[in-house]
């Protein structure tokens, strides 16, 4: 009898990755479950964290139900350097980072995929709602998950094709409801557990950016609130606390609703607008652009774009301006295009590429 093919499955303790492991097992793979420890026990949020000992125990219980090996990989140091420090650097530059994208690229499909290789597995499975396709030339490309409401391809855009070819997303072709019913049928202990997504980036009692500032013992960068014409409205205690489009918790009362329009890190200024349409952008400039399912030998590309996770994709024209930069023009205006977030290009379900938003354009 041939030895079974070994697949490492990243198990967060949530229902999606547990079902991913279960499905692979049913398909005849030898599944090894690995849970990443991303933060120290005392830092994790009670109950909900995907990083804490609670989730490690949940993952262990699911692995136990499936009868597979399960190990905990201590990634606290690399997570701190690759994800948390990078996130802080973004905040300190007046941008709003997307730590999940960075974590998927650097930790899950970086470190953990390497680790899987050292465990004799050539594939790494996760519980993401996304799918992998193969081009005629053999390159792997990313596709949206079949459940449109759960699709997580946005968070995976930056994984390069050779790493993607080692990825398996067993729940990507399913709906969340199906995943939950599989979990119940298989008697998985976490079948009805709440979502764990994003829980890595919550800290006890403190806002995430302020938590990062305290962690790295950095000074806050206070400065003025300015209106759209540059007139002072008041002062704030640090630019890292603000995100373009933010309305709540500004710490200033103008008598009418106000939103963060932009942040100028150099002067420490936070520009506010009291007009909803003041947030509207008709395009953006992106850097760190990666193309997946096609070779960028075009001048202009018609596709649909997403500038944040939970946004309906809109038609747009993408114009490469250099090897890894692009200008994007939306067919319809979009609100709150936020520097630091990812812009991802789609053709239907196919992920064509993506990049990091540097600035919005009118």
């Amino acid at each position: 009898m041939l030895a079974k093919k070994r697949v490492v499955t990243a198990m967060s303790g949530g229902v999606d990755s547990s079902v991913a492991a279960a499905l692979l097992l049913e398909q005849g793979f030898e599944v090894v479950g690995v849970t990443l420890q991303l933060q120290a026990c005392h830092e994790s949020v009670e109950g909900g964290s995907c990083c804490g000992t609670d989730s490690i125990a949940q993952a262990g219980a699911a692995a136990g139900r499936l009868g597979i090996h399960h190990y905990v990989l201590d990634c606290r140091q690399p997570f701190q350097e690759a994800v948390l420090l990078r996130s802080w650097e973004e905040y300190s530059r007046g941008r709003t980072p997307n730590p999940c994208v960075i974590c998927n690229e650097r930790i899950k499909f970086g470190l953990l995929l390497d680790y899987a290789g050292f465990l004799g597995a050539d594939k790494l499975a996760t519980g993401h709602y996304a799918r992998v396709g193969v081009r005629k030339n053999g390159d792997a490309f990313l596709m949206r998950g079949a459940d449109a409401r759960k699709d997580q391809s946005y968070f995976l855009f930056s994984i390069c094709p050779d790493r993607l070819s080692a990825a398996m997303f067993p729940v990507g072709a399913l709906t969340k409801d199906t995943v939950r019913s599989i979990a119940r049928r298989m008697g998985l202990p976490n079948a009805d557990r709440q979502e764990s997504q994003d829980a890595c980036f919550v800290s006890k009692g403190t806002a995430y950016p302020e938590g990062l500032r305290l962690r790295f013992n950095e000074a806050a960068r206070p400065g003025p609130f300015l209106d759209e014409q540059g007139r002072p409205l008041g002062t704030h205690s640090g630019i890292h606390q603000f995100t373009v489009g933010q309305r709540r918790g500004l710490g200033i009362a103008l008598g009418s609703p106000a939103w963060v329009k932009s942040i100028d890190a150099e002067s420490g200024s936070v520009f506010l607008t009291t007009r909803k349409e003041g947030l509207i952008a008709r395009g953006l400039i992106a850097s760190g652009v990666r193309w997946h399912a096609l070779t960028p030998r075009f001048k202009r590309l018609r596709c649909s774009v997403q500038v944040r996770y939970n946004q309906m994709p809109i038609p747009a024209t993408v114009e490469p301006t250099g090897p890894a930069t692009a200008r994007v023009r939306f067919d319809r205006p979009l609100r709150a295009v936020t520097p630091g977030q990812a812009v991802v290009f789609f053709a239907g379900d196919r992920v064509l590429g993506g990049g990091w938003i540097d600035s919005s354009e009118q």
Partner: protein
Amino acid sequence: MNGEQTVGERGMKRIYLDNNATTRLDSEVLEEMLPYLRDHYGNPSSIHWFGQEARRGMDRARERVANLIGASPDEIVFTSGGTEADNQALLGIADTVGKPGSRIVTTAIEHQAVLNSCRYLEKKGFQVTYLPVDGQGRIDPGTFADSLADDVILVSIMLANNEVGTLQPVREAVAIAKSRGILFHTDAVQAAGRIPIDAHWLGVDLMSLSGHKFHGPKGCGALYVRSGVTGPVLVHGGHHERRRRAGTENVAAIVGFGQACRLAGMRLGEANSVIGSLRDRLEQGILERVKGVKVNGCPENRLPNTSNMSFEGVDGQLLAINLDLKGIAVSTGSACQSDTREPSYVLSAMGCSTDQASGCLRFSLSGDNTVEEIDSVVEVLQELVEGLRC
């Protein structure tokens, strides 16, 4: 011995080399326990026959535990295990003898049960001296003698280290402490049942024991309290264990612990030489076939079943997981702290570099292991280390 070969999933033979974490329950121990789980369920404190049966089982167990360490039965206090015994010794003595500012002397490489009890006492206003160890994990008797200031009320030095197996010069240290009238506790959890121990010859006042390290059941241990020493108390309640440890006794486990002590005492001499030669075969095999390996610990004064080795340029945890996937169970250090990636504090205290400490594996054998198993481990390890290094 009487161990059946364990067959794991995928029909592969499994090899267990993690006996410092815990051991297989001996079938003779299980047999001894079963009647106390099924039939003799009385409370040992009860006046009726049910209670008397249970009490008699415990009495016999107490004699057997005492015999293993050359003590008398009334010097044995049953506890829930080694950790509780350590806590009882340290916290209990601090409570009865200590004053604010009193000092405890221990070593940097104790088990966490001792170290964290010490840290707790520091928070309560006690002072603690953590003695350094040399490159082989031994304390220096001269440094120890110098550490015994007037404020010292208790010394706690382990007999054998759980990670590297190094034996401490406990008898010598006891003599020094006695000359100053200072109480002496030793954590003998890893040593008991593996090397001959005579409590009176050692001269210690308190000694922690645990049954599951030598084929007894988990959840049962003992604190030896030398007669004449006012018993430290941790768990308050009824009159059990002559008011030294309250709570209805875990009778079946205590009976099993007693049987494990009896069997260990009978087998000590022979088993030791067999286990020791298997351990040496393992070490020699690895040293011959794998480059860049260093043995950690004290070659002359070491538990016969333990080998701790550093594999240059290889992550110990990764190696341990790969071995596990091939059915071979070893550990990277103490099972009580295997959830962290921090280099072992024991190896760090011994002056190992971070690389050396993070590339280490602990092999701990028992009488169940065979020559074939050892040879197979050497072969698998050679293959794995070569694969992971390239």
